[in-house]
């Protein structure tokens, strides 16, 4: 077997030492730092990306909580606005009904006044008619003229007596 030819040992070992040292230096100085650099860059990048993702997540959570706070505030404001509008509407309707009832009361008062006036007119007219009638009746009975003022006074007295008597 050529493997046991002793004279071949020395040259193989010499070139083994030389080539292995060359390989060691090339690996340690050139190849391995390159691969390590690639791997480290990637690991660094992945760690960075994870950090950034965590940061973005925190940011998103802040935004969500802010949004929820704004939403709650808006809801409260809306509620307040609705309550205010309700109160205003109630106040307005109350005012309107007060106005209406005032107008109605005024109209009722005016109507009552008109009724009173009509009654007074009627009474006055009645007095005039009663006086005329009484004067005419008295002149017919006694056949002489009767003073209008006296008749009137007598009628007034009778009306008053009638009013208080009845």
């Amino acid at each position, binding site marked *: 077997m050529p493997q046991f030819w002793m004279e071949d040992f020395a040259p*193989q070992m010499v070139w083994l030492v030389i080539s292995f040292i060359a*390989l*060691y230096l090339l*690996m340690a100085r050139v190849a391995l730092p390159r691969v390590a650099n690639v*791997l480290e860059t990637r690991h660094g990048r992945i760690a960075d990306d994870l950090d950034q993702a965590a940061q973005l997540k925190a940011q998103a959570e802040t935004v969500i909580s802010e949004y929820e706070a704004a939403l709650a505030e808006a809801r409260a404001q809306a509620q307040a606005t609705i309550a205010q509008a309700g109160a205003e509407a109630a106040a307005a309707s109350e005012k309107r009904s007060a106005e209406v009832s005032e107008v109605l009361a005024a109209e009722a008062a005016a109507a009552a006044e008109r009724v009173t006036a009509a009654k007074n007119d009627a009474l006055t007219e009645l007095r005039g008619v009663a006086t005329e009638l009484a004067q005419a009746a008295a002149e017919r009975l006694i056949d002489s003229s009767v003073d209008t003022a006296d008749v009137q006074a007598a009628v007034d007295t009778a009306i008053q007596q009638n009013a208080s008597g009845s």
Partner: protein
Amino acid sequence: MSAERHIDHSSPMHQFVIGRLNDWQLGGLDVSFSKAAAFMFGAVIVATLFLVLTTSKRSMVPGRWQSVAELWYEFIADMIKETIGSEGRKYFPFVFSLFSFIVMCNLLGMLPYSYTVTSHIAVTIGLALSVFVLTTFIGITKHGMHFLSFFVPKGVPFVMLLLVVPIEVLSYFMRPISHSVRLFANMTAGHTMLKVFGAFVVQMGVFGVLPFALIVALTGLEVAIAVLQAYVFTILTCLYLNDAIHLEH
């Protein structure tokens, strides 16, 4: 002092001739360049170019080739982390070079008409001895005389120690032998077998398809063995380094 020995071209062993290309001498030392030396440098160049070219783009999302380079790197890094722990980081370039050298020599040897550097005991014992010297050196510089306690298992009765300690010492010094012979024997056996079946293909004529089919299957097996034996050599190196650093069985 060129090799005068001759081996027949048709022999399955002919593929293991180192193939001297010149007859260089340096102060009495034979430093002849050979096919073996050329394939060693081939392994160095292929490993370096592969790692450098595949990482040239430095992609954030690796392509296929860059993934291979990264897997290769992390395979050894994880192996060291699991067997030695954080103290093993210092030896990462050495272990990585060792694995790369062996796996590249083994795989280049699978190419037709090529030569398998690791099929020679001279090469594998060279690698195993460098691991042995390194681990022993680390053990002694790290622990001093306390390193000798490595040969004295804990909880063994004194009388038994008279038997156990010599066995421990012997097994420690046998390490480079078993370490190197495992790789050399696997490579030699695999390539010899392929060559023998290759000869059958020619000799059996039409029926040569049977050994041919076998060769196809065996070639697949040999590729797996090429990677597996590189892994075994490397993980044993890691275990020996761990023993030297942590002094535990």
